[in-house]
C-alpha cells in the first residue's frame, strides 16, 4: 500500500520555497553585514582606550599658570543634543607629568567663569586622560572662548583661554549655522 495515498505530503508554500532557495545566501549575508561596521568599531575601541591619542583632534598644549594641559576634541564633530540639558561637546585633556600631583581639579566652560564655583564642567578620569562634557550656551557665538580653570591642592587657581576657532572648528561651524537660523 502506498503511504502517500493515506497521508499525502502538502505542497510547500511559496514562502517556504523561497526560503529553501535563498537561505544559504542569506546566512552568508548575515555574516558579511557586520564586517562593514568593523572599521568604525575598531576606531571607536582605539579612541575609548586611548590608543589613537587623547581624542579625534588634538588642540595642543595649553599653558595654565605654572601648569600645562594637553587638550583635544574627543570627537571631531558638532555638539550633540543631550535632551533638556541642551547641546554638549566633549573635550579630553591630559595634565603634564609634573602637575599631576599638584592639580586638584580641572574645569572647562565656554565663556569666562564668573567664579570658581561657576568654573564649568569638571574633567573626570585619570590625569593622563580626562574627559569633560561642556554645555554650549544659548548665546554662544563663533568668537567665543573656551576657558580652562585649574585648581591646585595649595588653594591656588589659574585660568587660561583658547579661542573656540582653535579648540573646535566643528563647533564654530555649527554655531555659525545655528546663528544663521535665528
Amino acid at each position, binding site marked *: 500500500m502506498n503511504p502517500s495515498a493515506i497521508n499525502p505530503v502538502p505542497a510547500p508554500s511559496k514562502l517556504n520555497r523561497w526560503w529553501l532557495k535563498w537561505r544559504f545566501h542569506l546566512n552568508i549575508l548575515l555574516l558579511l553585514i557586520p564586517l562593514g561596521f568593523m572599521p568604525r568599531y575598531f576606531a571607536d575601541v582605539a579612541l575609548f582606550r586611548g590608543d589613537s591619542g587623547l581624542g579625534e583632534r588634538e588642540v595642543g598644549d595649553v599653558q595654565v599658570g605654572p601648569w600645562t594641559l594637553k587638550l583635544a576634541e574627543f570627537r571631531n564633530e558638532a555638539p550633540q543634543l*543631550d535632551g533638556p540639558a*541642551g547641546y*554638549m561637546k566633549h573635550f579630553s585633556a591630559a595634565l603634564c607629568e609634573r602637575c599631576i600631583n599638584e592639580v586638584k*581639579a580641572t574645569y572647562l566652560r565656554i565663556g569666562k567663569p*564668573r567664579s570658581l564655583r561657576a568654573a564649568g564642567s*569638571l574633567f573626570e578620569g585619570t590625569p593622563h586622560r580626562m574627559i569633560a562634557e561642556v554645555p554650549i550656551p544659548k548665546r554662544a557665538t563663533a568668537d567665543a572662548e573656551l576657558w580652562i580653570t585649574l585648581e591646585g591642592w595649595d588653594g591656588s587657581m589659574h585660568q587660561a583661554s583658547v579661542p573656540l576657532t582653535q579648540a573646535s572648528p566643528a563647533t564654530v561651524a555649527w554655531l555659525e549655522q545655528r546663528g544663521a537660523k535665528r
Partner: protein
Amino acid sequence: MNTWTMHNALRGLLLIACAGVGSTVQAHSPFCDCKQINPTQIRCSGGFSDGGDAAGVTLDVIGYDENILLHGQLGSDSSLTFDKPAGEFYVLFDAGPGAVVEVDHLDIGQ
C-alpha cells in the same frame, strides 16, 4: 523544510536584529530653566538629562558683583519661585562641583 525549522530561522534573525540595538551611554547633565511667571516673580526648574529630579539642589541668585541675593533650594517639584531682584543678576543651579548651570537674567524669558 518544515514550519518548525522556519520559525527557528526567523527567531534567529530576530535575535541578531535585537543584538544590534545596543545600550546607549546615558549622560547625566544638569539643566536649569528659568521663566518670569509674572512681573515680579521668577520660577526656576531644574533636573538632569537622564530624567533625574533636582529636589534639594542649591539654587542661588547672585548679583553681577558676586553678592548672593538669594540662597535657596529646589522644592520637591524641582522648582523654586522667587522675587525678581532689581539690577543685574544670574541664577546658579549648583548640584556640586562641575554640575552647575548658570542662567543669566538676560536669558530669562516670559
